[in-house]
């Protein structure tokens, strides 16, 4: 039988996520110099086979949305997915583009927009995961982010080493960049085998309070 978190453990994870995301929002305001509103995250368990359907029903025009995918390893093991609606990258370019404007003719705008998405994604993902595992006193390392779209995402899940009946802990939040009218969704999908480590971290965390 597949190991999952109990309701009590899910509730405690929810509490920790609330704290982590509160701190992450404050940190982000300082780091990117823009107020990023992070909604209170919703934690739930999903099987990998339900994941795509969940994304399609949660995110408008999911297939054309942009997905920044960043795997993390260590005492937490999973993948963070930052999903922007199609076209959001155009808004973000002006916020994150480099200071020197000399764009060479060989660089298409599309490529630059993709790079900007990855850079923004890296910061947001790092802020949220970083704060979560900080609180849990667990160390994680990150692989470089990759950018794709919703249409191509199913394959990524399959190639990410997830089994169909694995349970993923979905930590879902929405974020908004103030003044930019850009919002998106962040999902953290933790691999099944990281559950015991997460469980012991939760026990330690509440035991130390």
């Amino acid at each position, binding site marked *: 039988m597949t190991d999952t978190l109990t309701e009590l453990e899910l509730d405690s994870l929810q509490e920790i996520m609330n704290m982590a995301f509160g701190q992450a929002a404050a940190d982000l305001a300082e*780091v990117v110099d823009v107020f990023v509103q992070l909604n209170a995250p919703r934690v739930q368990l999903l099987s990998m086979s339900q994941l795509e359907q969940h994304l399609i029903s949660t995110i408008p025009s999911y297939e054309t949305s942009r997905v920044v995918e960043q795997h993390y390893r260590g005492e937490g093991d999973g993948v963070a997915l930052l999903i922007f609606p199609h076209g959001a990258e155009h808004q973000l370019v002006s916020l994150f583009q480099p200071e020197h404007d000399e764009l060479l003719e*060989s660089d298409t705008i599309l490529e630059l927009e993709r790079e900007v998405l990855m*850079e923004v994604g890296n910061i947001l993902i790092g802020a949220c995961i970083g704060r979560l595992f900080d609180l849990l006193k667990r160390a994680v390392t990150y692989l470089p982010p990759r950018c794709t779209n919703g249409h191509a995402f199913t394959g990524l899940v399959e190639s990410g080493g997830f089994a169909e009946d694995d349970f993923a802990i979905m930590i879902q939040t929405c974020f908004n960049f103030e003044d930019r009218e850009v919002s998106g969704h962040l999902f953290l999908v933790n691999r099944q085998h990281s559950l015991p480590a997460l469980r012991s971290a939760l026990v330690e965390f509440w035991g130390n309070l």
Partner: protein
Amino acid sequence: MKATDILDTLPIGLVVLDRSYRVQSWNHWMTIHSGIQPNTILNHSVFNYYPGLNKPSFIRACKTVLTFGNVVYLSQKLHRYLFPFKLPGGDETDCEYMQQSCTMSPIHSEDGSINQVAIAVHDVTDAVRMERRLRRVNNLDDLTGAFNRRYLDQRLQEEFDRHRRYGRDLSMCIFDLDHFKDTNDSIGHLAGDHALIEVRKRVTTHLRDIDVLARFGGEEFVCILPETSLEDALQVSERLRASIEETELHWKTQQFKITASFGVATLSPEMLEARDMLEAADKALYKAKEKRNCVVSSAEFSGTQASPFEQAPRPQVTL
């Protein structure tokens, strides 16, 4: 070799900064490319030596590493380089500065706090040069140096999408050299090639950086004119037409002139695809070719828009 010496043998740059941006480590690779010895720069602010780094994107990257403890990747595509290491000049694809892909990572103290940032600097200049060369081959017309048809189709679609997003004007002109076959027949095909090259050069001097001049095929060229109204596009086209007409061409001992006919169109709400505008400009060109050496707007096929021109004479050759 001591363990710390390994850093000096790596074929990448390694720099460690503290929270005040003071250099704590500067490996041999950095010394070679910067000309700055470690004992000169250590414990000094990196901004003293590289003031260009004191900019929001770099500060943001450092804060991200120090605050969140995550690794930041600064891609060459977005940032070009962090440390401006001048390169010797070269061909048209050459880069003035070494192109760098950088990774910034946190260094944890024993108590778990993060007080230092490690920057790994990878030289990706060769890859960038190769990519630029390939792009040039892929995007440019071999003979004239104008963009090719493939690139034109791609950019037209991108500009069309941009117009859809922001609603800004988008116009284009398509022009065809008059009596080009006669030029080829009377002076030779190499003279014809020379005329195409000179026309491309001449026209380019009248266009902005954001305009796209592409060879559409044979003796036909297309100019995409972003953020340009129909009225302005007609003026630009008239300037281009006059410029071509004025150009004296020389081929060996022969001197000749050439003219061009222009069809101009602007994107209107009823055009649902980028190719609709191209088709409208092409129809206007067809009308212009009836008179030759003139500019015709797609909005009014009944006559010339910018100015009525006499029919162009056949190419005149001076021996």
